[in-house]
């Protein structure tokens, strides 16, 4: 496993968010992620994990605090948002593949359109990526014809095809049947060995233990605890973390 550098990739300070209905979802969340680091975020359902990582690529706005991604400050400036989205890939719980496009077109759409790269070159890279996530032979099928695990691996390949510097995962295995969880986690583990920066919301303790550099506990819209996996799982500093671990272990 490659070690993170000291360079900061994501810096979130005192982030507060209210949903339009008035719900206070983030209450001063702080997090710093370094280049090449794999950070796992855990926490009870409704604690604001999704909301928090979705602010990193501006899928959610926020009202207070600052977020800097790869040196670019997230503001309401649309050009900043576009620049950040190009560098940050996201993998969703529900895969969100484009059902009307074949697998290969799912991968090539954005690089051709956004990065303006030649289609043939992108298609070649896309096939290599599909090979890497172990589904090269499905390239010409449509997403609806694949199993959940295969779809999620396509989604990972689709994000990678944009060559992002940061990958966000929002519970990538929660919608999968148990026997498919492993194939997706294996792909993610291989990714972690490269020096891509990963922020992963997941309940997979084994993944957190073996792959993460740091595990973070969120509760009630705040980051409560962050520690290396051994410390986090065996000797957490906070009562809140202990209670959470009692529930899931």
């Amino acid at each position, binding site marked *: 496993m490659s070690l993170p550098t000291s360079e900061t990739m994501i810096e979130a300070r005192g982030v507060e968010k209210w949903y339009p209905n008035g719900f206070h979802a983030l209450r001063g969340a702080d997090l710093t992620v370094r280049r090449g680091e794999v950070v796992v975020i855990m926490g009870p359902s409704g604690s604001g994990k999704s909301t928090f990582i979705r602010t990193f690529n501006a899928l959610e706005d926020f009202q207070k605090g600052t977020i800097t991604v790869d040196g670019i400050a997230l503001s309401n400036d649309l050009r900043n948002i576009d620049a950040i*989205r190009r560098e940050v890939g*996201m993998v969703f719980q529900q895969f*969100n593949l*484009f059902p*009307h496009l074949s697998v290969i077109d799912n991968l090539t*759409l954005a690089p051709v*359109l956004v990065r303006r790269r030649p289609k043939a070159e992108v298609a070649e890279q896309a096939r290599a990526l599909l090979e890497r996530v172990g589904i090269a032979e499905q390239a*010409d099928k449509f997403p*609806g*014809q694949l199993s959940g695990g295969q779809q999620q691996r396509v989604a990972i390949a689709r994000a990678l095809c944009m060559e992002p510097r940061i990958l966000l995962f929002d519970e990538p295995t929660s919608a999968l049947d148990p026997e498919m969880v492993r194939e997706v986690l294996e792909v993610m583990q291989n990714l972690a060995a490269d020096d891509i920066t990963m922020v992963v919301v997941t309940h997979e303790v084994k993944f957190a233990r073996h792959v993460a550099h740091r595990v973070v506990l969120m509760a009630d819209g705040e980051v409560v605890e962050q520690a290396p996996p051994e410390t986090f799982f065996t000797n957490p500093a906070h009562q809140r973390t202990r209670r959470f671990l009692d529930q899931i272990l």
Partner: protein
Amino acid sequence: MQSLIRRLRSELFATPADAVISIALFTILAAAAAGFLHWALRQAEWAVVQVNSTLFAVGRYPIEQQWRLWLLTTLLAAATGATWGMLRAHPRRDRSGQLWPRNDRLAVAVLIAASLWVPFALGLTPAIQLRWWLLTALLVAARWLAGRFGAGLPPALKRLLPIVWPVLYLVGMVLIGGGIGLARVAPAEWGGLLLTLLASSFAILLCLPIGVLLALGRRSDLPLLRWGSVLYIEFIRGAPLITLLFLGQNILGFLLPGGLAPDRVWRAAWVLTFFAAAYLAEAVRSGLAAVPRGQLEAARSLGLSSAQALRLVVLPQALRVALPAMVGQFISLLQDTTLLSLIGLLDLLGVARSVMANPAFLGKNAEVYLTLAILFWCCCAALGLGSRALERRLDPHAVPSRV
């Protein structure tokens, strides 16, 4: 045969009560069919349709210019056959082998049978009968050629093919209306099926983009755009088409400057377009609502702009969902063109009314109306079949049965 009998028994004669109801219904249906056939074959006098067949087809379009319509029909037959064949030659990308349409051999057989029989039954002159047969032969030949060799065409050429249809539409407009060296035939002289198809295809083509814009406007974040769209949609949907048609005849002349809608026919076509757009917007809106939020989020997280996400991710899926409702709108639009006869235009119904007003054909209303009904039914059936085939082809979940 035995299974058929078993099925009949289980579905129609399961209990004594079922049997009584079935037999009663059969008797009523058989009596009605016998009565109808007796009328259609013995009593009805189809001369009214035979004598006026040209009038029904094109209204008062000048006879010496009708070669232009024949030419247009020839182009249409060739283009239809070629398109059909190309679709046959290109099964879906995923190689599930979905063809278009599924029963296309049957469709060709029906087409050939109809084109052999109808011109004959109408008592057309042999020369014109022959023309219809040649047109059918052309269509079938184009279908066969494109199906046989279409897959081998160079990709650059294939990309050009879809443009054939809009080009053909413009060519058709010129052929029908004149200009560019052709003698002008004023819209007032267009009539019959020609006018009906022209007005409805014009409205169908133009109401689509307008309807999509209205649907997007209704979901927009800009209050002014949203309210404007809602106001427009609700106003149009709250008014009967006939009042709008009369209104259009009176005010469009003032609203559109510089002779954009100088003519009664064009005014009516524009009113139909704007009317249909409001209904279409509602169909598209339901399609947009059916696309999960995650689709837009995934597209945006990949760096697509909102316009790109809309055009390439959201709209294709929304339109696919909205397709059946949209085609339903198109079918009622086609039928609504009969209202043109009430503002004095000679569409199919207008022609029919003028024919029935002729003392020579007094009391032949049933024959005329039945002919009209069959013509409309054919057009609507074609629209419906085409749309269902398109739906199947676009269905992302149409997975072949795994053997």
